[in-house]
């Protein structure tokens, strides 16, 4: 009976996931204002500081081990929050990129495909980084390299700004501020 219960549970999980997929994980991004309303801004400068290995090395050398661990835990919790935001924005940008990819203009479509790849890559990195930062909260002494996320996020933000510049130059600064 245990196997029956286990397999039934599997089937129920499939049904729940199916319902989620049919309903749509999130409502599709309708337009640029909808995108800006739903995106979560990331303070890139602060994020970079949090994941900067030099900053970490400096703190490690200048603080007592106990103080460093306490501070590092706080820094990693903040970095996790920023990474969550990048993962969320990457998902939104993936939707935008997929829409742009369907454009009839081949160059625009190519740019959309490139942005979709970058967004997906960032999403993968962000999910891995959230796990790593979580580990770092538990074991703060272990050095973590997370600066790649900030670098990739900046690249993706530039791509989105580039796409906006093509179609809505007046909204570039707003889009950059929303990301």
């Amino acid at each position, binding site marked *: 009976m245990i*196997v*029956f219960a286990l397999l039934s549970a599997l089937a129920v999980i499939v049904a729940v996931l199916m319902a989620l997929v*049919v309903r749509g994980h999130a409502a599709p*991004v309708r337009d640029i204002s909808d995108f800006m309303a739903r995106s979560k801004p990331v303070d890139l400068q602060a994020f970079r500081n949090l994941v900067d290995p030099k900053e970490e090395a400096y703190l490690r050398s200048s603080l007592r081990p106990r103080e460093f661990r306490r501070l590092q835990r706080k820094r990693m919790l903040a970095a996790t929050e920023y990474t969550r935001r990048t993962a969320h924005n990457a998902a939104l940008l993936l939707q935008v990129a997929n829409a742009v990819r*369907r454009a009839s203009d081949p160059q625009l479509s190519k740019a959309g495909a490139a942005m979709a790849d970058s967004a997906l890559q960032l999403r993968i990195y962000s999910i891995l980084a959230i796990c790593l930062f979580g580990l770092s909260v538990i074991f703060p002494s272990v050095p973590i390299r997370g600066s790649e996320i900030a670098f990739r996020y900046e690249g993706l933000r530039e*791509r989105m700004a580039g796409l906006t510049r093509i179609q809505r130059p007046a909204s570039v600064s707003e889009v950059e501020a929303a990301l």
Partner: protein
Amino acid sequence: MLNAVLNVVWTLAVILQIAASVLMIRRNLHRRFAPFFAYLAVQCVRSVTLFLILRLGHGPASYRLYFQFYWVTEAICGGLCLLVIAGVSQSFLQEYRVLRKIVPVLMISGLFALLAFNIYLTICAPGGESKRLISEILLLNRSVAVMEVGLVLGLFLFSQVMALPWRRDFSFGIILGLSIVAAIDLVAAAFRTEMGSFANSFYAFAERSGYLLAVVTWLVYIFAPREKTGEAVIIEPACDDVGNWNEALTELLQK
């Protein structure tokens, strides 16, 4: 009473799947989704033949023929179903260049994990069927259902975690219908394997109802509009910005 309901469900499913096959041909979808069309065609032939054997045949020879034809075609349909799920998953995920290298690795490791899970299940729960041949067939049937559910579970989970948007086209309908079949089949096969011949009626009812639901899903998605290019751009181009296009595009593509 149950037999009457079963017959209605079966007949309805046969009629609708023939309609779905015809519609696929008329909308020229049979070439684009050849493995799925083959699956649907085999299901049509199977249902009609089984119905004829059941209605026209008498005696043990007819039962033997029904039994053999049922399980042989069940194995073919199981194999085709796995093939269709793998094909649709691959084409959905390989739209993204980033995933092209990861997808085959993920799929192969997923298949090995499912195989190991099946071996574990077979050792732990060989089932309550007394006849050896039927017991082995049921175990195989349950294993195929586990593989199907495992594949769609992996696909849905991955698309949810990665926030990959599904287009509401026919390939989405195919995977949705097959997920319904697989999930209901898994519960029914697990119950049948556990309870033995006592659960025969439940198994038959669940299997046929699940298939009917799937056929209805496919019919709905056959009419889903095809994606058109040039209509889905979110950021509408502003007419007075034509001068910026080349400059910005060149800059963007150089990155």
